[in-house]
């Protein structure tokens, strides 16, 4: 336990540190002795070298997901990409219909955008996932209507890490001439993506989930067959009119480098994450009343979402001050509502409340995993000792049959 540094970070799905190699590339585009020009300045050398950097980054992002660099539109992050994809396509194709299909476990950036479109007169079907977190293709097919214009299903879920079958969903959508958008913020660099084979029309990416900087993302917009979107931010006409605003050269260069590293190291890294994840899982799974949330097979290597029955999630997080984990996604974690994702896969409020999401990343060590197993076990045991519900459970009382007196 010589060089174990506390607190330990297990929240790589919320955000990642910038890889030192990425930071190094970014500094080249920031300060005065470097390439700080505005890439839209076509008229001078400062602008040109910034433009070159952006072309390079566009190529690097495209290479990871095997698409044409011209299909990449820079945005300020995956939230904006999701907004642009969904509103942009819905507005552009509204003459073809006003029905959209998505899933209840999507990120808020997708769900809130769909809610907004409902206020504008669109109809949205929110599919229920199966208890393993995956979308049933038959249920999806059953939801198709003549006026369905768009399906938005995320590739990897941010809370439970399950991987949807976007290949099959894409085929279904294409057969029915429906545009298919995929939020890939949590999958790029973690799962193989080949856009030359997938029937995906729009795909959202983020840099800060794979060791790039915050504040930069991209939207893939298919060229063949051509997909059109209505711009959501106007002025300047950057990104072929699809997204205006000065491009942040250092951020884009950083995202490119992060994607380049991901392409090179993803497979080796996944093998390592899987070993660490399984070590953590094996260390916890024999405790009483623990439940893994989401499918264990169709799941990214670095995610373990696990509920400890009879323990209150917030107290557990408080008791685990030495590790940084989340219960529910970061964006909603300031609220005390149980995770809507866990509710959607059929978990009770109690189990949803007592969930922890561990996400493992580039800097996680075996030592950290072992330390954490001990820490979690101790904290759960201690909290259960204080819990009258736990006592009742141990005495064999079926808590569901208990009629609680009103306060």
């Amino acid at each position, binding site marked *: 336990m010589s060089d174990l540094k506390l*607190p330990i970070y297990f*929240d790589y799905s919320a*955000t*990642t*540190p*910038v890889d*030192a190699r*990425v*930071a190094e590339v970014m*500094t080249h585009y*920031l300060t005065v002795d470097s390439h700080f*020009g505005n890439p*839209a*300045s*076509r*008229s*001078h*050398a*400062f*602008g040109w070298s910034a433009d070159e950097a952006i072309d390079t980054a566009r190529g690097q992002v495209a290479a990871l997901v095997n698409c044409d660099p011209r299909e990449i539109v820079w945005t*300020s*992050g*995956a*939230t*904006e990409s*999701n*907004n642009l994809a969904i509103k942009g396509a819905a507005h552009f194709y509204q003459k073809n219909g006003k029905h959209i299909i998505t899933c209840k476990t999507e*990120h*808020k*950036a997708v*769900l*809130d955008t769909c*809610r*907004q479109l409902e206020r504008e007169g669109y109809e949205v079907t929110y599919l229920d996932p199966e208890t393993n977190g995956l979308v049933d293709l038959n249920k999806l097919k059953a939801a198709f209507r003549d006026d369905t214009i768009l399906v938005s299903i995320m590739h990897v879920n941010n809370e439970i890490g399950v991987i949807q079958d976007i290949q099959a969903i894409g085929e279904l959508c294409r057969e029915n001439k429906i545009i298919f958008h995929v939020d890939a913020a949590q999958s790029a660099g973690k799962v193989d993506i080949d856009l030359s084979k997938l029937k995906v029309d729009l795909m959202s990416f983020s840099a800060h989930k794979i060791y790039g*900087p*915050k*504040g*930069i993302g991209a939207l893939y917009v298919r060229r063949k067959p051509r997909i059109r979107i209505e711009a*959501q*931010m*106007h*002025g*300047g*006409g950057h990104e072929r009119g699809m997204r*205006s*605003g*000065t491009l*942040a050269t*250092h*951020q884009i260069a950083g995202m490119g480098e992060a994607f380049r590293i991901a392409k090179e190291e993803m497979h080796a890294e996944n093998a390592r994450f899987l070993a660490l994840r399984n070590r953590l899982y094996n260390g916890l799974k024999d405790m009483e009343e623990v439940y893994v949330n989401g499918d264990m097979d169709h799941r990214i290597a670095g995610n373990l979402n696990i509920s400890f029955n009879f323990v209150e999630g917030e107290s557990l*997080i408080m008791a685990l*001050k030495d590790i*940084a*984990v*989340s219960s529910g996604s*970061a*964006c*909603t*974690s*300031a609220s005390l509502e149980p995770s809507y994702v866990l509710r959607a896969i059929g978990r009770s409020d109690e189990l949803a409340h007592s969930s922890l999401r561990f996400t493992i990343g580039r800097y996680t060590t075996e030592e950290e995993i072992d330390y954490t197993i001990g820490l979690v076990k101790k904290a759960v045991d201690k909290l259960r000792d204080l819990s009258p519900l736990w006592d009742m459970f141990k005495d064999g009382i079926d808590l569901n049959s208990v009629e609680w007196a009103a306060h």
Partner: protein
Amino acid sequence: MPYMTGIYGNPSSVHRFGRLTRDALEQARVQVAQCVGAEANQVIFTSGGTEANNLAIKGSLLNQALASIAVSPIEHACVLEPAKAMAKLGWKLDLLVVDDQGRVVTDHLKSTMTAETRFVSVMAANNETGVLQDLAHLVEVSKSVNPDVLFHSDACQMLGKLPISFKQLGLDLMSVSSHKLYGPQGAGALIVSRSIDLQPQILGGGQEKGLRSGTENLAAIVGFGRAAELATETQQARKEHVQKLQQQLVDSLIDQPGVTVFSSQAERLPNTVQFSVQGIDGETLLMQLDRKGFAVSSGSACDSGRTDPSHVLLAMGIDDMIAKGAIRVSFGEQNTSEQIVQFIDVLAQIRQQFN
């Protein structure tokens, strides 16, 4: 740098990593607020000036019944384009008139505005000519016609060059950007007075009090905050430095035959000179200057892929041919007086080539 590799939490996370970044975010909010004379809780961080302008216009109008808006014709495209988008939705769009120096004509504003005018947008300082508007006066005139009108100003070019106070000017909305202030690209803010019911344009996650979702670009925002703080401290010194250079350049240009210096009779930003040389197309001139090592621009960087004459100069009634020759020189604290002398020399050489 520490916010990229060292302090890397997501500001929305409840754990220690998240808390540290949240504190940094709030500190930056205070720094930006102090720089622009606003309260910290009036600052909404965005991905830059373009997004701030889009949010200001669409966010305050999309939930209102159709009426009319008035916008100056010399605005940046990221104000003009959203304004046109509103016009497409059925809003009446009135373009204000500017005089030959590029200043909004007050009488015209007064006669254009009606009780139906919900929104006025006039930039604080123009990005091409550098001309300054008398915002306090324009706000007063607008509110005298319709006390409920929202007055927005794009202050992206103003920030860090001259002091500006959101509160004192009586503005309702103001857009600012980091990278024109020696801060990093990728961060900006919309300053919003508390009485406005703004409709968010990017949804999901509920950051920035629900007004702008998406994980905050922390490193850029912290850089923005620090740049804003430095600007407040060093603005005066920087202003004196660039103003001297500006004066030196204008003095050398103004008497040259065939040279037009734009907005020379008006109050301008201390760092900008826009001029045109008769007989040489702006694009050509700047390619020549670039070959000799001078990076200048023909106008707005965003429009520089195009060769149309500047909409700003045309609005001022400048002749097409003269407008086509326009180049913009803008100074920073790294420029020197010797560079100006060299620039004038090189310009003379180029003019000789073209004669």
